[in-house]
């Protein structure tokens, strides 16, 4: 038996900064499940955590960077993707993961998101989508379903939300999947898959925010959120991402939607410049061992 199993501790502990516990997340929050799944994925794929970096932005999900006992960076609001791009460029041998919320990644950081996907930056981007700016108290965010209530939309929002898988696919991501925090096995599997996938991989995780989003929209507690995901999620692998938008009270289409290949940002640069400059061009150091 390995050491981890005979000691009385949660198997995720070796991966976390236990001195930072207890964490700030509310009971029933989905973010902790994402952390758990990530640890399982790392354990299963035996990743060298010395070759791994976690980058976060601001918000409840942004806290992830602070809790992981790996090289991590808690950036400013909206900037985890450009920071991660810089990190990956300087250290192509590293496995670079971005964990952040939808408010961070596709609102204030939205421009970075589409452009990193377009260039196929070699990043694994996990977006915890809980439909609101939870940390600042529940203002209307970029994925808030039409008619949902927010502090800045007291009678319901009327702005069209983003359909994130569609946005990621159209921007050029090579891997696009969506799961809820109820789908822990699938989530772990997707994380294992993108761990080895070169290019811009995008994973949307629908997560309950009982304290802010669900309370304001009378959607019950954390358990009610999970029950909803269980009952109303439909697994449609390979679904046309145009049809996976989320409606208030509607079904949630989950699954792996896109898995395709194209040169990463650095590979494309190497190809283009080797072609133009021939032997004069010194290729960029190759990336992570996959």
């Amino acid at each position, binding site marked *: 038996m390995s050491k981890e199993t005979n000691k009385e501790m949660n198997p995720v502990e070796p991966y976390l900064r236990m001195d930072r516990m207890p964490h700030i997340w509310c009971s029933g929050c989905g973010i902790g499940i994402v952390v758990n799944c990530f640890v399982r994925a790392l354990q299963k794929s035996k990743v060298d955590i010395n070759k791994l970096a976690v980058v976060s932005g*601001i918000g409840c999900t942004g806290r992830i960077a602070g809790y992981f006992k790996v090289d991590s960076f*808690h950036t*400013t*609001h*909206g900037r985890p993707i450009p920071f991660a791009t810089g990190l990956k460029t300087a250290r192509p041998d590293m496995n670079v993961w971005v964990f952040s919320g939808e*408010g961070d990644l596709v*609102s*204030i950081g*939205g421009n970075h998101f589409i452009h990193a996907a377009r260039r196929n930056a070699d990043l694994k981007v996990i977006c915890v989508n809980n439909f609101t*700016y939870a*940390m*600042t*108290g529940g*203002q*209307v965010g*970029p994925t808030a379903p039409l008619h949902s209530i927010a*502090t*800045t*939309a*007291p*009678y319901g929002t009327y*702005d069209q939300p983003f359909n994130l898988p569609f946005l990621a696919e159209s921007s050029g991501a090579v891997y696009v999947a969506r799961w809820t925090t109820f789908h822990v096995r699938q989530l772990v599997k997707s994380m294992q898959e993108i761990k080895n996938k070169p290019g811009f991989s995008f994973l949307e995780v629908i997560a309950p925010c009982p304290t802010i989003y669900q309370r304001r929209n009378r959607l019950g507690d954390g358990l009610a959120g999970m029950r909803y995901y269980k009952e109303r999620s439909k697994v449609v692998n390979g679904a046309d991402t145009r049809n996976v938008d989320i409606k208030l009270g509607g079904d949630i289409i989950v699954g792996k939607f896109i898995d395709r290949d194209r040169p990463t940002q650095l590979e494309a640069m190497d190809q283009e410049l080797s072609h133009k400059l021939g032997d004069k061009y010194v290729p960029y150091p190759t990336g992570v061992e996959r």
Partner: protein
Amino acid sequence: MERRIGMEASIAMAEAVGLCDADVVSAYPITPQTHIVEHLSELVANGELDANFVPVESEHSAMSVCCGSSAAGARTYTATSSQGLALMHEILFIAPALRLPIVMAVANRSLSGPISIWNDHSDIMAERDIGWIQVFVENAQEAIDLTIWSFRIAEDKRVSLPTIVNFDGFILSHMIEPVLMPDREQVQDFLPPFEPLQRLDIDNPVSMGPVGIPDVYTEAKYVQHKLLTDAYGPIVETFGELEKHFGRKYRPVETYRADDADVLLLTMGALGETAMTAVDERRKRGQKVGLIKLRLFRPFPYKDLLNAIGDKPVLGVMDRAVSFGGPVGPVASEVKAALFSARKHPLVPEFIVGLGGRDTSIADFHSIFDDLFEAAERDTTPDPRFVGLRE
């Protein structure tokens, strides 16, 4: 008739904006400013304020929306803090250059890193030179009064410049205080409808924000500087109007028990209230300390400040931000610049206090007063001190 009511300072500020009939409010969530904008979006949704509320995707967009709506002739308001203000930086310069009288609240907060959501003045000190009128308030009542006043001064045709009301995050923004909330009629008597200096109008086309070639750029900047400096007159005048309408007096530089003081201390923002209590305590011990409160930060009220200081031998300056590797305290450096032209000037010990939410207690004030008396006795200026620094 005004009503006496207990209200959180942020909500009071939002109510004041409602009374001013703002036409467009655009903002992005950031702590600790959020309550202002949340309350405004409620007023708009309830039909109590006939305005458009634009929830944008970042503060950079918020200030851009504000410039657009103000250019079209709409009374425009926004609020932000910290990183949000920093993200607006680029557009902040555009508003005064185009004479757009936007009003903005800044719930002052520290800047990253390390990440800190708590109160100090780092955010606004980094935006010292953006060309906006800037005032600081101490309590919820001042937040109401000076928000209403801000629309008046910003839209004054002689001025037509954007205005910031600085109020300390959390230690003021989240305080519930008794206030006198004016009614709509009172506010309308004081604040005439917005008539922009110029506006984007298809019948009378103007071009805003074109390229300024080297031939005109210097002149454009000179005019901007002169406008902001000359705004001083209308500022004092409209403070007078405010007093006439609402009975509360505001001055660019205010003093508390300063006339007969042996040593003076200068503060800006909500700490002024704690400072007054500390001054009273010290006076009870028979030691004559006095307070100068800098209300108007831009345009900087040089003359008023010199008058307030008079021939006192020591003026301590409290700063809530750091000018790294430079003059340490940004306010102290401005004060010293003001004093440089005076024939005789006091010693100016500097104190850095309350960074990133560090509490500044009455005891801290007493330790500062001790330093001031010691400086007076030795006739030397001590090195700048980070008050309460843990070694």
